[in-house]
């Protein structure tokens, strides 16, 4: 019999990455689904993702006014444990910390830091023979962390559906809901199509790619990476930047990167990635105040580690 045993990257990847939350929740999560055979190692799985990126000097403009060159450093750590509750249902608990820091120009309304600390609470469910669903909510703090208060609290929701056509073709549908964002509901669709022995079109947000299997352990890819989030800056952010209107304002941050990279399966449970290329778009959009900053293209480098155990 023909057995396609492809590694299935079906983690119904959430439509954009999100944030996370306190360690005590994580500890609670680890202990939570005790009734679902927690003692059985196969019933519990762990995901740990670590990413680090650097963006070179990018000319940045605020409403067409040059502010100067801005560099960027971003880090993201996400840990999720999931446990089978029934044969079709898994609960997910975890935490995420993500931080963007930027070289700050002398003038302008660009934040020097945006970060999130959030919990991950969600579920995976098999809706039908070929349909899988993921729902994750990430309640936590999203802001510049100069002042942390209730205004920083947010809880974006990610919904994902996967249609498993067969081992070579899967369709993805997603919806990101963040009521604070300029775009409170953002739908997306994607596909993973292994169209040749060594080639895969993995068109899933936030990392659409074309992948080439060099061998069993090494993969080369060319694709994009989208990082986005909605944050609230501090109560005095506007005062500090000469624009009081921006005090405790909400900002949508987006950056889009395009370039090649390599993915190396060091162990069956661990994959390392390195990529680089061009950041083609970066914006800080204080949409309520109609203040927007954009960066011109700049080079970037990115490293990542993904563990599944």
């Amino acid at each position, binding site marked *: 019999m023909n*057995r396609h045993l492809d590694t299935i990257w079906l983690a119904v990847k959430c439509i954009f990455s999100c944030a996370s939350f306190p360690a005590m929740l994580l500890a609670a999560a680890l202990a939570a689904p005790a009734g679902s055979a927690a003692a059985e190692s*196969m*019933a519990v*799985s762990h995901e740990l993702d670590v990413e680090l990126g650097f963006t070179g000097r990018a000319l940045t403009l605020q409403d067409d006014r040059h502010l100067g060159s801005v560099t960027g450093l971003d880090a993201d750590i996400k840990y999720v444990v999931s446990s089978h509750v029934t044969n079709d249902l898994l609960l997910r608990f975890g935490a995420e910390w993500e931080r963007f820091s930027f070289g700050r120009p002398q003038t302008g309304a660009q934040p020097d830091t945006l970060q999130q600390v959030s919990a991950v609470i969600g579920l*995976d469910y*098999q809706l039908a023979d070929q349909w899988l669903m993921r729902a994750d909510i990430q309640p936590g703090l999203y802001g510049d962390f100069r002042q942390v208060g209730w205004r920083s609290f947010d809880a974006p929701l990610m919904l994902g559906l996967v249609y498993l056509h067969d081992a070579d073709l899967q369709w993805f549908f997603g919806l990101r809901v963040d009521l604070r964002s300029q775009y409170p509901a953002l739908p997306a669709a994607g596909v993973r199509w292994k169209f040749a*022995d060594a080639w895969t079109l993995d068109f899933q947000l936030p990392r659409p790619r074309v992948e080439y299997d060099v061998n069993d352990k090494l993969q080369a890819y060319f694709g994009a990476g989208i990082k986005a989030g909605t944050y609230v800056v501090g109560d005095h952010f506007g005062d500090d930047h000469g624009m009081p209107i921006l005090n405790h304002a909400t900002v949508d941050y987006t950056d889009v990167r395009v370039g090649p990279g390599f993915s190396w399966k060091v162990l*069956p*449970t661990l994959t390392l990635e390195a990529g680089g290329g061009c950041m083609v778009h970066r914006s800080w959009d204080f949409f309520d105040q109609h203040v927007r900053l954009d960066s011109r293209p700049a080079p970037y480098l990115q490293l990542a580690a993904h563990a*599944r155990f």
Partner: protein
Amino acid sequence: MKRLSICLIIGLCCAVSIAAPAHDLDPLKSLQQVSGFPNIDAKRLMGGEILGQRGPLMNSPHGISSQICYAVRLTPAETVKRLQTWEPTRCESLKVYASSGLQIPCELKDFNSLHLDPGQRPVKWLLDKTQAITADNSGLNLTRSEAHELAGCAGKNPDPNRVSSCWAKLLFERATAFQNKGLTGVLPYETGEEPLSPAAQVRLMLQEQGRITREFAPILQKSGLMNDGALVSPLTPSYNWSLFEADRHATLNLGAVYQLAVGDHYQLLDFHYYVSGCYYTAATLYEIWPIRVGETTGSLVWRVDFLAAPSLRYTKGIERIAYGSVMIQEIKKEIRCFQNEIRTKP
């Protein structure tokens, strides 16, 4: 069923005594009683519907299972025969490069059609792996002695004909041992972290599905699987080998198909007692009942597939669920090929 299936079963001795299969009930009731399908519509099955269901999460780290139910418009006896004789190489989507039965006793010439064509990327992978074999580490399912022998035979000679003949010899020796000694003749794979027996893997999976093991106790007992393979089976299986694509890699396997009439229906067991790589073993159990829907007669086929693969150890959570679902889709693809062949050559 040459390539038709994945697995086999190993029964647990303890389960046999409780075996009270639903033999004399209405086929649909029998199936509902023993399978995981809550609703079975015979009319729709006769119309071509294929039902599939993932098996439960197993403690066995390498194991996964599924159940499938379908119908064909043939008598059970004819269905059994066709399952064993249909030619999967004719169905392109199954990517079976070569498949052939084996004589009893088998001969080296039974593997004459084994030709590893480096022009096919999955086959080139197997050729490269074979060239890179060492006694301690091959990434293929071999004993140390086989690894040593294969390394010596193929050496650094890239001639695919040479490598093909080396593999043919290895398969011939394994098939002969199985024909002579049954499960006790199956050598464990020794090139991984620890020795691994295909039969033991199937037994582990069966241990976790008592209801299925009890239902198939008759054939599991008579195939020798339920007594740890200590006895040579009183059944004479049909033997086969094949070269096909699994996980984008060319894979060689040796299989044995047992059949047993149980009252008015049949049980079959297709066991992959040797697989060159990508997965460890597979076993498929079939139960085939006569069925009548209105004026139409046919066979109701229930198959339970077990698969043990190294990659499953690291496939957990939603990925494992997805894996099970994809496995069902792939099996359905195979069944559709089988049904199409029946339609075109009734």
